[in-house]
């Protein structure tokens, strides 16, 4: 492995790692607040991508600009998902909630498949193939923008959770459900807001990758497994963990692609995943609780 190839792998991994972090941040927020593993998170990303794709194809709206529409739209989808489907089963065993999100994911994925078919689609923009050379390392402009966008979104999320009353209520509901009920927090609404924000993270990530990634009904599957790995690595419920975990997974994946044949790069990731699950299920940055 030459230094150039290594450098290239590091940069590509880091850039896509930002997106992984954003998808995982939504997942980890939902898990942190209501202890639900959202299996539909990948499908929500797909939905966000399609929304952005159609806004671009039909109305010529730039994918980055479309975030202003896709973000709130996906927030609404997540909010309603929680209110209509998940709220009634909150008292049920863990796996029922997991299955419910899985069922909703199947509905989204196959609904898209039935509506728009299985074919791969692309949104080609003038900046889709713009590449800068830094030394020998090629850096793709849309990937840089996606990375910066993901970091911005994560920053906003952090500010929301740490600096606002809503964020405080959310953290309170996560840590002490009954206590926060007692002090007057409307936990049900907090849950719906958290699910909405989690879904919006996935939707925004979808819009950010649209300029350089294909769209298909099952594109989210590529991201959901990675997001699980990131979340477990960073610690379920930990925001900082999802950022660091996302970058680590992105880099591990792209270096794995250089040293391992075919799709075996993912074996490396699953190996890390299983090890972390076994040795430190609270994640590298999670609390001990």
């Amino acid at each position, binding site marked *: 492995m030459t230094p150039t190839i290594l450098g290239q792998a590091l940069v590509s991994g880091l850039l896509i790692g930002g997106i992984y972090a954003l998808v995982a941040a939504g997942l980890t927020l939902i898990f942190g607040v209501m202890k639900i593993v959202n299996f539909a998170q990948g499908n929500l990303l797909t939905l966000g991508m399609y929304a952005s794709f159609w806004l671009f194809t039909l109305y010529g709206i730039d994918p980055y600009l479309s975030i202003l529409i896709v973000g709130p739209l996906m927030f609404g989808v997540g909010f309603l998902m929680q209110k209509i489907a998940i709220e009634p089963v909150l008292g049920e065993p863990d796996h029922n909630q997991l299955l419910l999100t899985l069922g909703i994911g199947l509905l989204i994925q196959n609904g898209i498949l039935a509506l728009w078919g299985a074919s791969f689609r692309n949104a080609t923009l003038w900046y889709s193939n713009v590449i800068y050379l830094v030394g020998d390392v090629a850096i793709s402009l849309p990937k840089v923008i996606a990375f910066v966008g993901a970091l911005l979104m994560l920053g906003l999320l952090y500010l929301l959770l740490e600096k606002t009353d809503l964020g405080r209520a959310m953290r309170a509901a996560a840590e002490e459900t009954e206590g926060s009920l007692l002090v007057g927090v409307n936990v049900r609404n907090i849950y719906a807001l958290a699910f909405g924000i989690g879904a919006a993270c996935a939707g925004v990530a979808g819009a950010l990758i649209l300029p350089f990634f294909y769209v298909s009904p099952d594109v989210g599957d590529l991201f959901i497994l990675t997001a699980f790995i990131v979340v477990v690595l960073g610690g379920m419920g930990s925001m900082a963990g999802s950022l660091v975990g996302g970058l680590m997974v992105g880099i591990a994946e792209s270096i794995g692609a250089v040293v391992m044949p075919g799709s075996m790069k993912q074996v490396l990731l699953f190996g890390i995943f299983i090890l972390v699950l*076994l040795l430190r299920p609270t994640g590298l940055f999670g609390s001990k609780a």
Partner: protein
Amino acid sequence: MSGLRRQLFLIAAFGLLAGLVPLVDRDQYHIFVIILVLFNAYLGMAWNLLGGYAGQFSFGHAAFFGLGAYTSTVLLVRSDVSPWVGMWLGGLLALLFGLLIGLLSFRYRLRGPYFALATLAFAETARLVATNLDQILAEWAPSLGKITGGPTGILIPLRNDFGSMLSLQREPFYYTALGGVLLVMLLTACLEHVRLGYAFAAVRESEDVAQAVGIDVSRIKLIAMMLSAFLTALGGTFYAQLFQFIDPHIAVGVPVSISILLPAIVGGAGTLFGPLLGAALLVGISEETRRILQGLPGAAQLVYGLILVLVIIFLPGGLVSIPRRLRQLGRRLGKPSGRPTAIGRQEPA
């Protein structure tokens, strides 16, 4: 033992009725649909032992299914070993893989969603190995040649020889599937009434309490895991022989894990007849959708998603809980609306 006697009677009655169907109705399509019901019910029952009775929610049964399918198929295609023999080896390998997964996850006390994610990770690793094994072997041990066929999978040449679990007729597959279902039902029914079955239930209801009354929780979970993995692998062999084709996606992919657990969840997890009812509903509805919405891609999966969502929200106990639900509803409707309180009937002011 009257509960067991009633269950055995029901199983026998079902076996007799189902056994007569191909003699009365020779329509190959009908027979094929019932094969699918039986096959899915079988897998659901195998999953049910671990996921329903012992309460360990596995999201990675595709690993065991794939091991069964690949082992017997590779043996058949490469060495002409009959799947009737190969399936036991596949089952054994799956049992060992289950033991490994179980030892690791239970040793580190993975529960609930963490256990589900761990099994998913193991299954995905198995899928990647099935996809890439040939490429790796080509580099390290070229003398072995091709084994899993990579992403393109393995095609089993069709012939009319049921000694190799292959047939141009549907009936042999029908009776094989029926036999499998009846055996697992018998096993499950007996399990419900022996010490081991009680231990399964205890572990499911509360691991701490089970531990406190002297049950070796890890051992019980391992037994459930190995049993479930072994039976699931036999189902994998059957699948490969019925469709004469496997590839990493259709034999080890995530959708396989989902379709293995769906019949049990929809019918009623931890119940004897749940997976059978669940499979009948799922296969029936998906065949109908296929017929009505001809060619619409994703239609069957869309319906699966819908059924799953509806069952979890409105019928978390599965189809088997419908009679109980109806009785509750009837009782509620039968009561007068001015409900008596503890002190006495409140009269409207």
